[in-house]
């Protein structure tokens, strides 16, 4: 908007301009056209920029399994239809705005048209038809996703504030120690490639405290791994289900998608999809109890873990390690804390291993020292651990392969 134009077309002079004699002007003036090119150029640049971007681990447009692939396939044509409507409507608004804009000195009172019933019926029916076309595959897929496959593997997903636990509830997934409970892991869900997995979602609260035996902080979460499946809420008192599968081994990212309190933004998880060979090895290992260390420092750590630290704090008030006296369920099960698949801990906030595969002592030290300093509101208490205690506990945890 150049100052000259503004003055000429300004409102204060408009009433007077209207009284002036009519002049004819038909074609789109060059400055309007120039502005249009600018807008189009910017749009093209935007599309270009979004096209050349790197790997995004939660990109719903980069599906790697079902139903994420089908969900994308359903959305893409809808987006194309929307793009078509967008071009027609916005283009229409733009063209009308340019074509019929008031021109200085050309005074006219346009024809006073009050409406047209046929047009009204037309633009009521046309969108209705488009929407009907969209709804047919939509409804059929709603029912398709609600169906439960016959021979899926069953896993119960447990939402805590703010981390995820996983229990493998099938008969062949019982552990080989104690009372032969289900394999239980935290933070990383491990599944075999090529197999349907049916998740049952349960909200379990979190923290060591209970009221009348019921864990506190039972809130709604939502379980979502964008490249594998859309989200389902984890609602206290209900059990929702997700069925998914993928043929592509790899690690997929996910996180809680329903606001669940202070650290909702850092309630993450990963899904490790293993090929048949690695899967068998993983299951075999997970069925074993926690390793009893031989290293002196790790032995000291095990002692602290099971019998309490110098401040009187008890790790086993919340944590479990299979095959030991530790069997609490309020916090992540640590039986195989240092298994290679357990890539991340504390709501997948921290990497368990450094890129070279060595233990990530720095992150675990910070976490053990003062959980609230690195994750405000974390339910893990600060037990005033001394540096030697932290070293011993870390040696023990990293011995739990």
């Amino acid at each position: 908007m150049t100052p000259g134009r503004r003055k000429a077309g300004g409102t204060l002079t408009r009433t007077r301009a209207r009284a002036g004699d009519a002049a004819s002007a038909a074609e789109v003036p060059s400055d309007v056209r120039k502005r249009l090119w600018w807008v189009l150029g910017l749009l093209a640049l935007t599309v270009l920029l979004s096209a050349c971007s790197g790997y995004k681990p939660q990109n719903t447009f980069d599906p790697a399994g079902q139903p994420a692939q089908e969900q994308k396939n359903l959305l893409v044509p809808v987006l194309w239809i929307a793009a078509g409507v967008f071009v027609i409507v916005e283009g229409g608004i733009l063209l009308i705005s340019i074509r019929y804009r008031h021109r200085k000195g050309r005074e006219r009172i346009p024809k006073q048209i009050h409406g047209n019933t046929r047009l009204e019926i037309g633009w009521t029916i046309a969108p209705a038809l488009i929407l009907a076309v969209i709804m047919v595959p939509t409804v059929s897929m709603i029912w398709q996703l609600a169906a439960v496959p016959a021979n899926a593997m069953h896993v119960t997903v447990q939402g805590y504030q703010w981390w995820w636990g996983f229990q493998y509830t099938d008969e062949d997934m019982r552990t080989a120690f104690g009372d032969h409970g289900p394999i239980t892991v935290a933070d990383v869900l491990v599944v075999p490639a090529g197999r349907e997995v049916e998740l049952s979602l349960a909200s379990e609260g979190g923290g060591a405290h209970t009221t009348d035996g019921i864990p506190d902080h039972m809130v709604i979460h939502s379980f979502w791994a964008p490249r594998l499946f859309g989200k389902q809420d984890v609602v206290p008192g209900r059990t929702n289900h997700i069925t998914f599968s993928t043929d592509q081994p790899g690690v997929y990212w996910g996180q809680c998608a329903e606001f669940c309190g202070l650290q909702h933004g850092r309630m993450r998880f990963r899904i490790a999809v293993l090929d048949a060979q690695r899967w068998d090895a993983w299951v075999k290992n997970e069925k074993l109890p926690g390793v009893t260390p031989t290293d002196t420092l790790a032995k000291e750590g095990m002692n602290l873990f099971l019998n309490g630290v110098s401040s009187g704090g008890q790790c086993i008030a919340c944590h479990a390690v299979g095959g030991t006296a530790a069997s609490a369920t309020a916090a992540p099960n640590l039986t195989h804390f240092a298994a290679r698949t357990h890539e991340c801990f504390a709501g997948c906030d921290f990497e368990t291993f450094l890129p070279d595969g060595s233990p990530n002592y720095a992150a675990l030290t910070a976490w053990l020292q003062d959980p609230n300093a690195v994750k405000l509101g974390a339910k893990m208490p600060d037990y005033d651990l001394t540096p030697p205690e932290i070293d011993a506990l870390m040696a023990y945890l990293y011995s739990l392969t």
Partner: protein
Amino acid sequence: MATATVPTRRGGILRRPTATTGFWSWFTTIDHKKIGILYGVTAFTFFIVGGLEALIIRAQLARPDQTLVNAAQYNQIFTMHGLTMIFLFVMPMSAAFFNYLIPLMIGARDVAFPRLNAFSYWVFLMGGLFLYSSWFLGGAPNGGWFGYAPNSTTDPTPGMTFYALGLLITGIASSAGAINLAVTIVNMRAPGMTLFRMPVFVWMGLVVQFLLAFSLPIITVALFEMLFDRRWDTAFFDPTRGGDPILWQHLFWLFGHPEVYILILPAFGIFSEVLPVFSRKPLFGYQFVVFSGIAIGFIGFGVWVHHMYAAGLGPVANTAFGISTAIIAIPTGVKIFNWMATMQGGDLHFDTPMLYSVGGVAMFVIGGLSGVTHSVVPSDYQQTDTYYVVAHFHYVLFGGAVFGLFAGMYYWWPKVFGFRLGEGLGKLQFWLMIIGFNLTFGPMHILGLEGMIRREYTYPAALGLAFWNEVASAGAFLIAISVLVFIINAVRARVRHRPLETDDPWDARTLEWTTSCPPPAYNFETIPVVHTLDEFWHRKYAEDKEGRLVRVPAGASDDAPAPAVGHAIHMPSPSFWPLVAALGLPTLAYGAMYSWWIVGLGALIVVVAFTGWALEPGTAE
């Protein structure tokens, strides 16, 4: 009505205040125009506050792993941003327009219940201040504007108790206002102003008041249950004691979705007024625009489960509500096509109100299209609770509603204050706004599809979301600059105070422009008699022998204003009881949080105020 004779009493404690000008008159005014201005100024102030909260949000999210605010602060800020923009800005700003304009547009001297009107305003203000006092009393609400239980009912900070009580208070304001305006529209139209001669803005106002009247009771129930769960340990939403968290979701969204239309329909009304005036054509398909607005109001009560697809209600519910969500797009589309047809063939004057209206329609179209994708339930499992939804509803509520409100402010500013806002600064402000708006919310579509969830206070760099977040944050600051330009424009126009050359600066079509700018306290010297839709336009223009439209010479019309009789028009006197009664409500609310003694005090204030209200004389004389 104002001229009704009421037994009067002189003097005594119940004597009514008389001042209609000066600082203190603002506290006792019951003039719908002054109350409208109070609503507007207050709402705009909250807009600034909510905007600053948005800037903190965007600064925090500009880059991955930022620590500008921590999780606790962020959760309070995003919750208060939502509450402020919805309950303390868009709703009361719409109320400002309704209050000021509806009586003028239907040819009335005031609303049906002027003191109740003042009460609504003061209660709204008290509700807003009560909510904001939470920052100093242990923490602001931190469970999101949607306040999902049991997170909201078990959170240890007092924030969500402020939420429940604060929204109950503002709900009282909205309920009283809704009844008042609905009665005004139904009963107080000028002679000849049949329902189908009402401006579309008034129609949308009527629909909104009905939406409020029917949806607010639902949220009131939910808020009381939340309050009881939090404060007195009931178990409405606690599944371990027989409650159900999904109950909250049903109650909240059965209110929450009509609420969306409560926020957007006023803007639709404004578009429907501004587009014809600046196209110099009547609104295309008036009846269709009106009926589609009514249809939206009805269907708006039948789509709430599309907020809950992922909650696990099952395929039957998801199918039904997917279809209803698709259906509501139809009447919305009808409106857009009619607005386009209104512009088609017109003589379009792109003054700032028109820019904001055309821009608003264009932006709303984008929000409408992304809304249609929400009816595609299986793919919505991917988009729900991501930034895609944040993008969607900001295109609807910012691109639609806020652009509409700005259009309305530029359009009616001369009506309300007697001088225009600057056109140059106005256009600059519009272009800054629309560019900043698209930079902020456009990229959020992409962010959501790339897996960025809502309400997270930070995100790791590994997600690859940094670039678009940076763009969005830059855009947010552009919006802030635009709002700053608006404030400069308003101040500059006030300082210059160039009087209008005419009381009809836009060559408008509706009754509010037949009176002076600003209007006298009694609005009209004589109550206008209405013969047609767009009455004022038809007084100015008539067809000549060849069927062409020509301007009727001033004074030639039959409806030329009668001689001034303003001094003889009797208007109700100011009253301070609405303010006193309103003060009782936050007192009750603080009492519910802290002590039964304070509850007693609040109850006493309310009882005394309503007694005084009932017994005070009808006039000051």
